[in-house]
């Protein structure tokens, strides 16, 4: 345990043997499926004729909503998403027809023969339009503590403003894919790239009009998910399943990159208004947030995402009086969905903006303001929803990182550089993250496992989590091997399969290892107990004269089982297993885990929604070319709390990857739609995720030491989502560099992502203001 062990599939990946959906060996009867989608953001379907397409060469089936044998719905929470559009379409990219043919070329040829008439309707394509039209997706929500109006009214200083944060595409390297294989009668096996196989199973059964017992969903591995396959992997599975049922043949659908980008939802855009009151030292006295998110055309997970945003608008700071109002708006764009951080990043960007503005206003270093407002250890340690921030590591991390990153010296150097250079400016920023771990929908905090031990002493572990590169299966393998005291190569983690472990929660909310690891541990404990009983009996039979071995005396270590009080009584693990079988004892056991100690009253807005908090901080330094807006990321130092890391190599990689993904969202990843609702950034040449040349020139990532977490398996802490939000350190460093143009006397205009264009426009505005208002400092 707590070791650097390579990813369980890494050896297969480096030789190209690891199989994704698109690599599965195909049968001669395999058909290729294609989705025909809406070209209008909002339209009525007047008529269509599929006759010609159905007669096209190679085509086996062309389906519309009328051909769905079961329910035509797909919504994970609210049933407001049709599997295939029936009467009308509500976004460009919405599935309308399905085609199955021998080849993709035949599908495309058939698509051209579909005759469909639409009557375009007025579409809502921006948050502003949605707000103006009062196009709310559901009732607004509010969380509050204290009296904000009083706090703002009596505060020595008050600032207000608004912030826009952009959408983002998941850009998992493997696009959405599913392969459905028919079985006997109603049976079907679905090979899917889904983060939520149980939900995929449910929805496939519903669209087919069969029962869950008839549908098996299997996920071997996912080529990147990041939330984008939590609900939206279901669509491809359902479409493939419909074609499979209609043709009686195996059907595979793999979205092409552009289609994937056009058809699937993104991170929610937010428009946040804020107002903050603070004292001369920069202590926050009251903050008011108005969060607005763009849900797109359907509900998907938008309310849960907004709820997490509401929980995280405090980020790491204690605010005595706080009032958060949240509204989720409907637009005619693909339904936005889960994406690493799940609303957290959008809310934290707003809070960090508040802190940054307070610092600039008071002419103080922003790190100092951050520190002054961190949740306290003994007091000021309760969040606005009533959860105590326990095991608070903010202060420890801050102190260590300020030192290790040489923040103070570098701040001075940055100031000197900026004083000496007119056209180049440097910026430096530290930002923290405090992220609550658990599904905020409390019943999802459960996990199951099924562990089998075979007669040769090898172990097959099934659990409900999916492997998408985060190293979950590797950690599970480590946990099972550690518990049984056997070498890791005796343990195999099976593909996630709904027939092995039923009714599972999605692999999301950073809970994969915490929950499934515990479920596996429980299953293994049951097995160990049974094995120990047999082994103790065996020892006592072999050597009846000697002292008695009780099952509790049996130790499992280094592939051996022995009596801890009489270590000469021992048997190899592989040797012991047949003895258990001879005694007719089961070597298959299930395990189950429900996260304890959590609970949350939605109506009152108080409770303990999280099992624990994850903490981390980053310091980033950038160089900005003020004539072009070009940005170079010079150095990033991250100190992150992974508890007693189960696998430091994997966790470090997750932190680096999360941070770089956050960097992309904050800087280069810009999603644009045209005035008709067409996605303009639908390919990698127009949508820029970070490349190896965009990462910090000097990149230092460290795990916090002596950081045992009492609330998760083996003292570990999840890393998955939290590091994403450390990308905000870069975003704040860029703002610091921009602000240097006006010598930090003027609040710059700013948005997220800070593309070169945003940077340049902001600098030009500052320069113009400086010209107009040369002598007086201005506070925007």
């Amino acid at each position, binding site marked *: 345990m707590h070791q650097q062990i390579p990813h369980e599939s890494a050896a297969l990946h480096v030789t190209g043997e690891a199989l994704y959906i698109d690599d599965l060996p195909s049968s001669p009867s395999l058909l290729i499926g294609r989705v025909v989608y809406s070209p209008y953001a909002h339209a009525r379907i007047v008529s269509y004729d599929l006759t010609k397409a159905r007669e096209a060469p190679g085509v086996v089936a062309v389906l519309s909503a009328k051909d769905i044998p079961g329910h035509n719905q797909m919504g994970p929470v609210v049933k407001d998403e049709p599997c295939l559009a029936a009467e009308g379409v509500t976004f460009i990219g919405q599935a309308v027809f399905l085609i199955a043919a021998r080849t993709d070329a035949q599908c495309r040829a058939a698509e051209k023969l579909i005759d469909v008439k639409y009557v375009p309707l007025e579409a809502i394509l921006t948050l502003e339009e949605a707000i103006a039209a009062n196009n709310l997706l559901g009732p607004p929500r509010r969380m509050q503590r204290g009296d904000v109006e009083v706090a703002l009214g009596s505060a020595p200083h008050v600032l207000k403003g608004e912030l826009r944060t952009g959408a983002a595409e998941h850009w998992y390297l493997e696009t959405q894919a599913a392969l459905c294989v028919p079985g006997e009668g109603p049976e079907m096996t679905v090979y899917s790239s889904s983060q939520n196989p149980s939900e995929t199973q449910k929805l496939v059964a519903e669209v087919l009009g069969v029962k869950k017992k008839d549908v098996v969903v299997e996920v071997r591995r996912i080529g990147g998910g*990041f939330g984008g396959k939590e609900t939206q992997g279901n669509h491809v599975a359902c479409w493939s399943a419909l074609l499979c049922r209609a043709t009686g043949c195996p059907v595979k659908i793999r979205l092409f990159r552009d289609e994937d980008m056009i058809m699937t939802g993104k991170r929610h855009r937010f428009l946040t208004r804020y107002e903050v009151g603070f004292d001369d030292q920069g202590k926050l006295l009251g903050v008011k947030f108005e969060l607005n998110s763009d849900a797109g055309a359907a509900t998907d997970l938008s309310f849960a995402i907004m709820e997490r945003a509401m929980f995280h608008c405090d980020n790491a700071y204690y605010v005595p009086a706080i009032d958060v109002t949240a509204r989720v708006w409907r637009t005619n764009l693909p339904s936005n969905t889960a994406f690493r951080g799940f609303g957290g990043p959008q809310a934290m960007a707003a809070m960090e903006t508040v802190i940054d503005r307070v610092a600039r206003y008071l002419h103080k270093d922003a790190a100092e303001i951050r520190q002054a407002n961190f949740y306290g250890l003994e007091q000021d340690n309760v969040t606005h929803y009533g959860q105590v921030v326990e095991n608070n590591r903010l202060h420890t991390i801050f102190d260590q990182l300020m030192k290790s990153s040489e923040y103070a010296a570098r701040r001075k150097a940055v100031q000197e550089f900026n004083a000496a250079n007119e056209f180049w400016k440097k910026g430096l920023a530290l930002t923290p993250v405090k992220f609550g771990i658990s599904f905020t929908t409390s019943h999802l905090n459960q996990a199951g496992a099924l562990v089998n031990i075979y007669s040769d002493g090898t172990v097959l572990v099934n659990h409900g989590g999916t492997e998408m590169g985060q190293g979950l299966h590797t950690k599970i393998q480590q946990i099972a091997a550690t518990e049984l005291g056997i070498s890791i190569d005796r343990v195999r983690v099976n593909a996630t399969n709904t027939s092995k472990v039923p009714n599972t929660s999605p692999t999301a909310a950073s809970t994969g290892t915490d929950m499934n690891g515990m479920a596996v541990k429980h299953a293994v404990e049951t097995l160990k107990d049974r094995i120990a009983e047999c082994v103790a009996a065996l020892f006592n039979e072999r050597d009846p004269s000697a002292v008695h071995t009780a099952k509790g005396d049996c130790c499992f270590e280094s592939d051996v089982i022995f009596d801890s009080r009489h270590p000469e009584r021992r048997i190899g693990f592989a040797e012991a297993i047949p003895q258990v079988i001879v005694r007719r004892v089961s070597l298959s056991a299930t395990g189950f885990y429900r996260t304890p100690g959590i609970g949350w009253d939605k109506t009152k807005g108080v409770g303990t929604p999280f099992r624990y908090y994850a903490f981390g901080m980053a310091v980033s330094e950038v160089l900005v070319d003020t004539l072009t807006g070009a940005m170079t990321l010079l150095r990033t130092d991250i100190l992150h709390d992974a508890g007693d890391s189960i696998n430091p190599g994997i966790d470090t990689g997750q932190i680096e990857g999360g941070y770089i*993904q956050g960097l992309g969202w904050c800087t280069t990843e810009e999603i644009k739609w045209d005035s008709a609702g067409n996605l303009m950034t639908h390919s990698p040449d127009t949508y820029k995720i970070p490349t*190896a040349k965009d990462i910090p020139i000097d990149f230092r990532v460290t795990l916090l030491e002596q950081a045992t977490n009492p609330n998760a398996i083996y003292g570990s802490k999840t890393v998955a989502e939290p590091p994403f939000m450390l990308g905000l350190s870069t975003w704040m460093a860029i703002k610091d560099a921009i602000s240097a143009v006006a010598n930090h006397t003027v609040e710059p205009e700013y948005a997220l992502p800070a593309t070169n264009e945003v940077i340049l426009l902001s600098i030009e505005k500052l320069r113009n203001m400086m010209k107009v208002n040369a002598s007086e400092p201005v506070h925007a």
Partner: protein
Amino acid sequence: MMKSIVITTTINKRKHELEVHPNTTLLDLLRDELGLTGTKRGCEAGECGACTILMNGQAVNSCLVLAPQIDGQEILTIEGLADGDKLHPLQESFLDHDAVHCGFCTPGMLMSAKSLLDRNASPTELEVRTAISGNLCRCTGYQQIVDAVLETEPVKRET
């Protein structure tokens, strides 16, 4: 329908005589016809590098190469990188450095890295970053991959 043509080519050190459609991409030929699915489809537009293979030692995006273009050429794919059961030092180094997360970019990364090390046995960090800058990875943040390439033992680098 265009007529198919016959080409001869060496793929992973084995000679092949193949009948190909002129507009089939090398990527589709490898995956769909030869079953070499280690080379991945990421974008099919020359932008992501998941389909990187070596053509006469040069890293190229196989989604941008038409099958007839490999007539008389030598192709190396991820399946040919190891020497039988013996992994290439780059593969070993990727394992040692946790440079594999979801793994979808890994084959392409390895081929780009091999092409670099074959030309330049001791590259700088910047040279490594530049060499793999056409290979997108959404999981790792690249540093572990860069370290894996940099720390591939020079003595063991030749295949």
